[in-house]
C-alpha cells in the first residue's frame, strides 16, 4: 500500500470511498506524521484524540454511505481560527490559555463537510510576518534545505506552520489566512499550492482579526485540485460576517477542465521590479510559455500603482491591527500582568503579551490614526488603495486573469532579514496588491531556484472568479511537473 501521508486530498477521498483504507487508518498515519514532524515546530497544539474520534465517526458514515465531501480527511488548522474548547493562541503570549466558546465559521464548515482536525498550526504572532519567526511558541522550520547547506530555513509566513505541515506530509491540507501574502508566500517557499480567495468569499467570523479589510482565509494543499476541493468546503456566505459576500459557491473542482485556450492572461510590466533575480524572471517566462503552449494568450498589461502597494499596505494593515488588537487587555481572556491601576495593568499586560513585531505594528498603526496624521497617512493610503483597485479593474477590461511570480526570492534562513523590518516587508511585494484590491490569487509550485528551493507562480483573478485561476493554476501545475520533495518528510527522515 502507498504511504497514506503521501496521498492528495482527492486521492485519499477516493481511497476512502473505494474502502482501500479506513478513515481511522488514514488519520492514525497522520497523527504519527504530526509526531514525526515535531522538530519543525509546525504545530502549537496537537489534537490526536479528537482526530481519532472524528475519524471513527467518519468511518461510520462511510459505512452507511453518507460520506460528506471531506469525510475522514485529516487537515490541520492555522492557530488563528477559533476552535471551540481547543486552545487558540494566534501564536501570542497574550492569548495564554484561551479556549474559545465558539467555532469559527470556516472550521465549522470543514467539520460539517466531514474533515478531521489534527491540531493547530504555528504562525507569525497575530499573522504579522513573512517568516513564522515571531511566534511566541518559537519559529517553525521549513522541511526544505538549500543544496549543500544545512541551515534551517523559514517556511515563509505568516501561515508557516500550515506550509511546513502540508509540505512535510503531516496533513493532507491546512487552512491559512492571507492579509498581504500569508498563504501564497509560504506556499511558494515550500512548494505547495496556496489560494487566497476573493475578499468576502470565506467568512471571517471566528478567525482572529489582523487587518479586517485585508484578511481572508484559504486552503494550502499539495495540488490544485485539493485547493479546489478544500475551498469549496471552506467558502460560503455567512450572515454573521457583514463583509461576507452573498455569492453562490461554484463547484471549483469541476472547473478544472485543463482547457485555457483563448484565455487572455495579463503580464504586468511593473512586476519586473528593479534588481529582480534572474531565476525569478526565468521562472516567470517559463510560466508564460506554458500558458501559451496551452493555447492562452499572454497580454502585457500595466498596473502603474504597484510600486506604492507595500507602503499603502503598511499604513492600512497596522492601523486596523492597532484597533483590532485593543481587545487584548487582560480583562476577559488570556494573559494578565497585575498592576496597581487599570491602566498599569493594561500597559504591563500588553508589553509582556505582545512580541516586538506586533508592538511595532500597533505603534505604527496608532501613530498613523492619531490626531493630525490621519489625513496624511490613513486617508491618503485609502485613496491610493482606490487607485490600486482601479488598476486591476482597468486590466480586467483586457484580460481574464494575471500571471506573476509569487515572491521575489526563495526562502531565507531563520534569522536572516530580521534586523531590517522593511527588507522583511519586501517579501510581499507581489502579493500585497491583490489583498488591497480584494481579489483572489493562487500560488502554484513551478520549479526550483538555483539554491534548490521551490518557487511559485501566482495567478490573480477577477473578484469571485476563483474558478478561472484554479483552472490556469492546474495547467501550470501539469506543465511544471513539480515533483521535488523536501528533505524532511514525515516518517522518512
Amino acid at each position, binding site marked *: 500500500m502507498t504511504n497514506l501521508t503521501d496521498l492528495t486530498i482527492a486521492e485519499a477521498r477516493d481511497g476512502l470511498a473505494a474502502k482501500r483504507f479506513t478513515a481511522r487508518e488514514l488519520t492514525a498515519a497522520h497523527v504519527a506524521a504530526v509526531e514525526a514532524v515535531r522538530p519543525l515546530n509546525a504545530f502549537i497544539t496537537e489534537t490526536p484524540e479528537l482526530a481519532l474520534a472524528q475519524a471513527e465517526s467518519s468511518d461510520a458514515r462511510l459505512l452507511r454511505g453518507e460520506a460528506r465531501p471531506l469525510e475522514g480527511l485529516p487537515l490541520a488548522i492555522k492557530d488563528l481560527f477559533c476552535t471551540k474548547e481547543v486552545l487558540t493562541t494566534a501564536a501570542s503570549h497574550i492569548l495564554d490559555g484561551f479556549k474559545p466558546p465558539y467555532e469559527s465559521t470556516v472550521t465549522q464548515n470543514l467539520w460539517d463537510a466531514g474533515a478531521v482536525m489534527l491540531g493547530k498550526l504555528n504562525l507569525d504572532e497575530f499573522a504579522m510576518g513573512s517568516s513564522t519567526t515571531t511566534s511566541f511558541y518559537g519559529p517553525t522550520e521549513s522541511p526544505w534545505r538549500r543544496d549543500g547547506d544545512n541551515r534551517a530555513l523559514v517556511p515563509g509566513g505568516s501561515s508557516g506552520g500550515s506550509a511546513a505541515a502540508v509540505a512535510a506530509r503531516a496533513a493532507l491540507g491546512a487552512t491559512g489566512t492571507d492579509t498581504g501574502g500569508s498563504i501564497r508566500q509560504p506556499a511558494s517557499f515550500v512548494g505547495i499550492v496556496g489560494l487566497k480567495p476573493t475578499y468576502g468569499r470565506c467568512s471571517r467570523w471566528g478567525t482572529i482579526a489582523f487587518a479586517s479589510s485585508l484578511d481572508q482565509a484559504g486552503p494550502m494543499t499539495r495540488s490544485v485540485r485539493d485547493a479546489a476541493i478544500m475551498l469549496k468546503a471552506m467558502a460560503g456566505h455567512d450572515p454573521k460576517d457583514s463583509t461576507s459576500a452573498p455569492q453562490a459557491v461554484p463547484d471549483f473542482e469541476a472547473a478544472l477542465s485543463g482547457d485555457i485556450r483563448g484565455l487572455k492572461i495579463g503580464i504586468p510590466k511593473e512586476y519586473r521590479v528593479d534588481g529582480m533575480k534572474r531565476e525569478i524572471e526565468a521562472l516567470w517566462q517559463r510560466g508564460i510559455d506554458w500558458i501559451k503552449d496551452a493555447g492562452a494568450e499572454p497580454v502585457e498589461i500595466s498596473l502603474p500603482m504597484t510600486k506604492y502597494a507595500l507602503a499603502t499596505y503598511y499604513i492600512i494593515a497596522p492601523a486596523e491591527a492597532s484597533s483590532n488588537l485593543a*481587545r487584548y487587555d487582560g480583562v476577559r481572556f488570556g494573559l494578565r500582568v497585575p498592576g496597581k491601576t487599570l491602566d498599569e495593568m493594561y500597559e504591563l499586560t500588553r508589553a509582556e503579551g505582545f512580541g516586538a513585531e506586533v508592538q511595532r505594528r500597533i505603534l505604527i498603526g496608532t501613530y498613523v490614526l492619531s490626531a493630525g496624521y*490621519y489625513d496624511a497617512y490613513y486617508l491618503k493610503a485609502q485613496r491610493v488603495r482606490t487607485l490600486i483597485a482601479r488598476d486591476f479593474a482597468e486590466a480586467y477590461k483586457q484580460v481574464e486573469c494575471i500571471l506573476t511570480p509569487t515572491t521575489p526570492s526563495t526562502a531565507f534562513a531563520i534569522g536572516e532579514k530580521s534586523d531590517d523590518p522593511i527588507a522583511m516587508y519586501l517579501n510581499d511585494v507581489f502579493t500585497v496588491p491583490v489583498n488591497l484590491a480584494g481579489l483572489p490569487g493562487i500560488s502554484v509550485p513551478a520549479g526550483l531556484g538555483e539554491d534548490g528551493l521551490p518557487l511559485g507562480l501566482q495567478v490573480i483573478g477577477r473578484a469571485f472568479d476563483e474558478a478561472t485561476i484554479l483552472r490556469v493554476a492546474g495547467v501550470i501545475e501539469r506543465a511544471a511537473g513539480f515533483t521535488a520533495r523536501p528533505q524532511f518528510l514525515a516518517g522518512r527522515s
Partner: protein
Amino acid sequence: MSLIEGRTGEWEVVIGLEVHAQIISNAKLFSGAATAFGAEPNTQVSPVDAGFPGMLPVINRRCVEQAVKTGLGLAARINLHSVFDRKNYFYADLPQGYQISQYLTPVVGKGSIILDMPDGSAREIGITRLHLEQDAGKSLHDQQATSTYVDLNRSGVGLMEIVSEPDMRTAEEAGAYLRKLRSILRYLGTCDGNMEEGSMRCDVNVSVRKPGAPLGTRCEIKNVNSVRFVMLAIDYEARRQVEVLEDGGEIRQETRLFDSGRGTTRPMRSKENAHDYRYFPDPDLLPLILDPAWVEGIKRTLPELPDAKKSRFVRDYGLSVEDAGVLVAEQESADYFEAVARGRDAKLAANWVMGDLFGALNRLGRRIEDSPVSAAGLGEMIDLIADGTLSGRLAKDVFAGMVETGASPAAIVEERGLRQVTDTGEIETAIDAVLAANGDKVAEYRSGKDKLFGFFVGQVMKATQGKANPATLNEILRNKLAG
C-alpha cells in the same frame, strides 16, 4: 434672555446637551443578545459584546429604523449614506477597546425641537445631529475595596446620541428641552426615556461669556441622571465658571462629574489624559445605505407628535394652550383625555383628568396606564353629571369611590345612594325644617345679613346628605327667604 449677575456684571450661560438615548429593541445594535434592564450580571452578553477574538458585528435593522424614526420626529435631515467609525480608547467596560459609533457622517443631520416655556413663549432649539453607537458595559466601583466589577449586559445596546446646538441659555430651558425630547422619544416608541434606569443619559456642555462676546471655553458634565440634576448641575457649573473668571482665572476644557449629594461638579479623574480617539471607518462594516422608499415608509408610520397633538387639542377641544400642553406631555395622558372627552364636554373632561385624576395618581404613585379609574369609567361619571344624576359635589365622592374600589360610577351611585335629589317637594320639606329650626338666623338674614345664605345651603345639604340638586335648592331657598 436671562443672565446671571456676577461681581463684574452680567454673564450669559451657553448650554448644549448631548443625550444618549437607549434604543427600544429586543436585541443589541450589533449582536443577538437581549437588551432588557436589570438582568443578572453578564447574562445578556454574547461573545460579540464581550469583544472576544474573531467576533464580528452585524447591524440590527430595527435599531436603524428607530434612529431614522427619531430623526423624522425631530424634523431632521435623514442621511441616506452614513458610515460607522471606531472610536478607540481603553476602559474596563469597553471590551473591544473601541466603540462603534458614527463620527463624520451620522445617520441623522440637522433638526430642531420647539420648547414651550412656562411664560407661554416658545423657543426653537437646534439639533446638530443624531448618530447610532454602542453602549458600554457598567463598572461597579463599590462592590469591593480594591477592585472594580464589570458587567457587560449593557455593552452593545443601541444608543442614539442626540446632540443639540448650544442654543440654551438657562437651566430651565435645558430642563424643558430634556422633557420635550423625552416626550417625543416616548411618542415615537424609540426610547423609554427612563433617566433613573439610565436608558436616557445626559452630558451637559456649559460655558459662560459676557453678553455678545465669543463663546467661552466649555466644560462637559458627564452622565447626569435626572432633569432636576441637569438643572442643578448647570446652575452650579455656571456659577463656578463665573467665579473662576472673575477671580482672574481661566476655564480649562475638561470633563466633570456631577455630585448629586453635594449639588456640585468636580473634574473626572479617569478622563484626565488628553484623548485621541483615532476615529476611522470600521472595516468590519460597510457604509449604511438607506433606501429612500424605506425611509418614506417609516415616515408614514409616524404617530401624531406632541406639538401637532397640542394644536389639535386647542383647535378641536377648545382647551387652553397650557392645558393642552400638560395633557400631551405624555402620550398616555393625551390618549386617556381623548377617550374621556370624545362626545362630551371637553373642558370638563380636561378638568377632571388634570385635577382629580392626576391628584389621585400622584397620591397612589401610579402611572396613568395603571389608573384605578378607566377612561370609560370617568366618561360615564361625566355623563351622570351631564344628565343631572350627580352634582359636582356628589361626583367628587363618586370619583373617590371609583379610585378606592375600581367600581363603575353607576354602581357606586346605587350602592351608596348618592343620586342627586331633584324632587322639589323633598327639597322644600328640608328647607322648611331648616328655616323653622333657625328662626333667629332667618330674621338676621332678612334684616340684611346676606352672607347667611351659605349657612342655610349648608344646613339643607347636610339634611339631605349632600344630595340636593344645588340649583333647585338655591332657587327654592331664595324664594322662601324672600317670602
